[in-house]
């Protein structure tokens, strides 16, 4: 098994499609952490996160024959993840979260006030990190997803829009709203 770490994700996926299992291993190794955390931060339950995580990879394996390079591999992977997450929400008693449908609220208000340009972290990083995770958990699902996609896969606004099936403006609005909320929350710390 030749591990080609220099190959791009799209090439590896094509090689996996053509029957090279080693290419899948490389892909899996690159993206398993981010995808798992994406699922974990969204549903808040590790067991559910693992189940959803496994489902996403199995879907990818089953659909490998029809894979064609139309976008970045991460966009393709997190599109599968987003769809699986939506199915999970719909299967829940609460149904589809309203944040996915509602227009994003005022995101840019008081952006200056919430902005903390000082990258220095407080004395207790872990405490702040925990606080951040808490704040992330309190975000609406749609905004939270946007933030996580940015943080875990380093997606641009356009890629976030493609992965979530929304317009660029919607994706941007959601992301800004999330950042602003987190800043405000962290600023209180």
């Amino acid at each position, binding site marked *: 098994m030749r591990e080609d770490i220099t190959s791009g994700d799209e090439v590896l996926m094509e090689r996996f499609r053509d029957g090279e299992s080693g290419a899948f291993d490389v892909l899996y190794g690159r993206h398993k*952490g981010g995808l798992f955390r994406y699922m974990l931060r969204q549903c808040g339950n590790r067991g559910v996160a693992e189940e959803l995580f496994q489902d996403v990879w199995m879907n990818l394996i089953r659909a490998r024959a029809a894979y064609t390079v139309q976008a970045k591999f991460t966009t393709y992977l997190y599109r599968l993840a987003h769809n699986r997450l939506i199915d999970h929400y719909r299967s829940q008693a609460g149904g589809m979260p309203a944040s996915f449908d509602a227009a994003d609220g005022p995101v840019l208000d008081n952006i200056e006030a919430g902005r903390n340009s000082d990258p220095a972290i407080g004395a207790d990083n872990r405490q702040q990190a925990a606080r951040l995770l808490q704040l992330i958990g309190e975000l609406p699902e749609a905004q939270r997803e946007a933030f996580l996609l940015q943080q875990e896969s380093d997606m641009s606004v356009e890629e976030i829009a493609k992965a979530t099936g929304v317009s660029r403006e919607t994706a941007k609005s959601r992301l800004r709203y999330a950042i602003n909320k987190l800043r405000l929350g962290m600023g209180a710390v």
Partner: protein
Amino acid sequence: MSEKLVNDMERDARLEALYHAATRDEPPQALDDAIRAAARRAVSSKPRSAVSPFSRSWGVPVSIAAVIVLSVSLVVVIRDEAPEMVKPPRADAPAMSAERRQEPVASDRASSVPEASPPPKPKQSNGIRLNAPQQALRPDAGIRDNAAPPSATQPQKDARAMGQLRPAPSLLAKRSPAEAFPAPGAARDKASASDEQPSLKEEMRRDDDAVGEPKTRSERNQSQAKATPSVSAETKTQRQRELEADSADSTSRARVAAAPESKPAAAAAAAPSVSGTPAKPASPAADAMQGYVDLPPEKWLERIADLRKQGRIEEAKASFTAFRKRYPEHPLPASLKDWANP
């Protein structure tokens, strides 16, 4: 808004640092192993492709072969079933169609006028049906039919005029020419028989009541003409035609028989009669012949009987003498037999 600000609005370094400093959660190893194994199994099994190699190489030929087989089998099946599908013309179709044509006419006949006259011949039991539509139109239709050779189209014209249904042409066709166009004498004989048409009988009864029981045919006809002024011109025309036809026959015979004796007289008498204005008779014999020479024998005898009843004995005897000369063998009525054997 500057690009930096936009970027800052969309990204936050501090938040990113904090986020990445948080617990870096990873999937369990077992899950990793399971997913990798699934991937290997998927790869090691028969490669899935949207289009299988078999389909790629044999798809078109197999499809073509299937179409050919289906087409051939369909053709064979249709060919085998074709004789059954194409029903041959039924042997009794013409008869059935004829019957069908008759049926509505029969039903119409059923609703025809009850006074419809029966056919002249009794054996025309089928003919009743045939004739009825023609005759179930007017009460006096029978007169025409019996008096003169009925035209094939006349009853139909009457039917149309009366608004009745006309008989099917096939019905007329079924009648023999002799039946369709009986001879004048035959028609007369039939009419005088007991199987005379009821409508005619009824009229005669009516006329008898009105006029006083005329006995002779001519009287009856005359009375009918009086009592039924509604007799159409066509009927009169028919009668006239009949009389003319009879007289034409009798005239030829009379001319041959009476040629040596009364030729001049006949010529003298005929000429004025032809012209339409009777000339003054020169002698009793000529007077006796006047007006009778063109009559048929029966009518001549009737005229003689009338003269006798009226008391014009001399004229009657003269006419009778002329008659006997002309028709020596003709049978005489009972009322005149005494003059035959004086």
